């Protein structure tokens, strides 16, 4: 059995099991489908292309007591929890329900400015083009214009990497009075990257927890602002009680140990599949034979992108079932089957 055949069989197995409620269902509407061949096949065709958190039945979300959000306490807890990745002190934090909210607020506040997005960030291009008339894509830093806005995800969605010369980008933004919004959704699941956000140009940081923790159904994302938007901004937390929940989650699931657990799974599966692990712990670098599952293929994004990653979350979730189905223990390699 070759690698594609193995993954294809896993995809049909997991999709079928999911359609019968015998495997964890994904958290999006497209994760619900009929168990007939078409329903299963449509889902199986993108099951490794969608990046999502690992649905872990042992993961417990603390109850929401709907108390008043204390954003200051959240900022303090975050600062300790994420310290290995960046220094978030100096930002005021708010709860938003999705990254989209942060991005929409950013373009709304800057309605009269050009918004720049990296060529690799196809999701942001796709989404923001509907909300702002002047969204432009850059391929080199010198294209970014003066007094504009930059929205960039780090690591960047296309490659799930951070450019080595990222500080040079920030230098340009400082020099051209470009306001920068950073999206750290993938930073939480990266192994090696950390970011210095103590830059004049960085005005906003977005942190979505849904790739790290199975929380997407809860819609927990936070946004940190360096600018003061007025004395009443605490009123605009989108969900009450979430600060307390997130603080408890940060205490229960320290970032480094949680990522380490995922990394162990990643290494086990990458060994079995003979694939190079990605820097993001949910991913593997996938050769051309697996291009069906490259994420940007699924999004029908620019085919020139060099993104060659597949997401292994569903393999992690369904490891026991896969072992039973193939009668394997994952100690060998796929080609032994």
């Amino acid at each position, binding site marked *: 059995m070759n690698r594609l*055949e193995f993954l*294809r*069989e896993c995809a*049909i*197995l997991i999709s*079928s*099991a999911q359609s*019968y409620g*015998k495997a964890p269902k994904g958290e999006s509407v497209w994760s619900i489908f009929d168990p*007939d*061949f*078409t329903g*299963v*096949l449509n889902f*199986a065709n993108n099951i490794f292309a969608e990046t999502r958190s690992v649905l872990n039945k042992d993961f417990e979300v603390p109850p929401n007591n709907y108390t008043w959000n204390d954003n200051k306490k959240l900022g303090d807890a975050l600062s300790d929890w994420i310290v290995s990745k960046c220094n978030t002190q100096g930002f005021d934090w708010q709860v938003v329900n999705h990254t989209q909210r942060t991005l929409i607020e950013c373009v709304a506040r800057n309605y009269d400015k050009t918004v720049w997005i990296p060529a690799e960030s196809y999701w942001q291009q796709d989404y923001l083009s509907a909300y702002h008339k002047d969204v432009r894509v850059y391929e080199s830093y010198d294209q970014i214009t003066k007094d504009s806005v930059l929205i960039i995800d780090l690591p960047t969605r296309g490659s799930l990497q951070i450019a080595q010369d990222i500080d040079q980008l920030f230098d340009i933004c400082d020099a051209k009075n470009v306001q920068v919004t950073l999206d750290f959704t993938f930073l939480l699941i990266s192994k090696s990257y950390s970011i210095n956000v103590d830059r004049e140009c960085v005005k906003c940081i977005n942190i979505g927890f849904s790739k790290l923790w199975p929380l997407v159904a809860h819609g927990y994302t936070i946004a940190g602002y360096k600018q003061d938007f007025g004395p009443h901004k605490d009123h605009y937390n989108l969900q009450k009680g979430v600060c307390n929940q997130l603080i408890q989650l940060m205490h229960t699931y320290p970032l480094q140990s949680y990522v380490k657990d995922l990394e162990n799974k990643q290494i086990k599966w990458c060994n079995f599949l003979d694939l190079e692990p990605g820097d993001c712990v949910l991913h593997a670098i996938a050769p051309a034979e697996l291009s069906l599952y490259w994420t940007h293929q699924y999004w029908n994004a620019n085919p020139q992108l060099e993104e060659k990653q597949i997401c292994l979350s569903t393999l992690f979730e369904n490891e026991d*079932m896969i072992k*039973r*189905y193939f009668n394997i223990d994952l100690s060998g390699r796929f080609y032994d089957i």
Partner: protein
Amino acid sequence: MNDTLCILPFISLDRNADSTNIPPAPCCLYQAQSKTAETFEQYWHSDEIVSVRSQMLQGKQPKGCWKCFHEESLGKTSMRQSVNSGRLDAHKTSLNTHPDHPVQVKMLAGATCNLACRMCVGHVSSKVNTVWQAIGRPSQDPYKYDQQADQYIRNNAQHIAYIDLMGGEPLYHKKLIALLKFLVDSNNANHITLYLTTNGMLIKDEIKNLLLKFKKVVSIFSLDGVGVVHEYIRPGSEWQTIIDNMSTLRLFDNIDVLVQPTISVLNILRLPELDQWCKDNNYHMTQKCLVHNPIELHPKQLPIELREKVHSDYKKFLETKTYPALGFIKQLDEHWGTNIKTAMPEWDFETADQLENDLVTYEKVQEFLNNE
């Protein structure tokens, strides 16, 4: 004339086309409302059919006729409306609750057939039945020659104006040929119109000479594609033989030649070619049939990869998207030593092999999950 009237309960003896010993009915769509009579004579005077006639004469819709009224409610032309347009005026004198004789009889020649068409079923074609046995697909027994209808026609030939002949292949059955000879020899053919549904392969001189003796023959040729496409879908057929026979029959004044395709997953991409061929050759195409069994060959099973190629006139037949066609097509290809990709290259789409493998995997996975 009221809006619920149908001429068939007043003139017709019919049976469902693909069953053995099914009780008589006014048409093949009628749904019996009680245990109906077993013989034609009992049926013709039974309470149920008398009630149907009575309700129609009163402008009511008999329950058993719901299929036609349902079609009409959807804005489509029902069989009732089609038949009325040709026969209602001619048989107005029969419009009473106890007409003397039926003038129209369905004659089912049994499932004996010279072809094993891929979109046919085992109980309607003896050859398909053999193929299905060979590939391990379950089938009902082939239905038999309708001896009762044969006898009824012989006994009442002087009253009969229309006979609807269906198979299998009607012209492949010696008993049916004998019946046609009887009608000719007894000087009844000259007042009878035959409706003959045929695959067109067996129009020998003996048959032509018989058909010439009838008042009228409406020959309905089952064509599913042009050339190699037709031959692929109907193994055993020869395109050139069929079109030669069509050309010959249309030369006779008393014979109409019509074309009737069956829409299936196999030909839905190629039907525009057949439409054009009929137009170019001046053949009228009747209402097309739609395959419901084998379910794998219903047009809705067309792989997604091929759906965009379907002509807009035929898109309505696609309905929901599924894939089961591929497994059955492959099974039949293996049996016949053919390859659909040779007959119709468009089936050689990029992911066809992957889809076939996926289907095998899907079935294997279902078995595993049943035990999970």
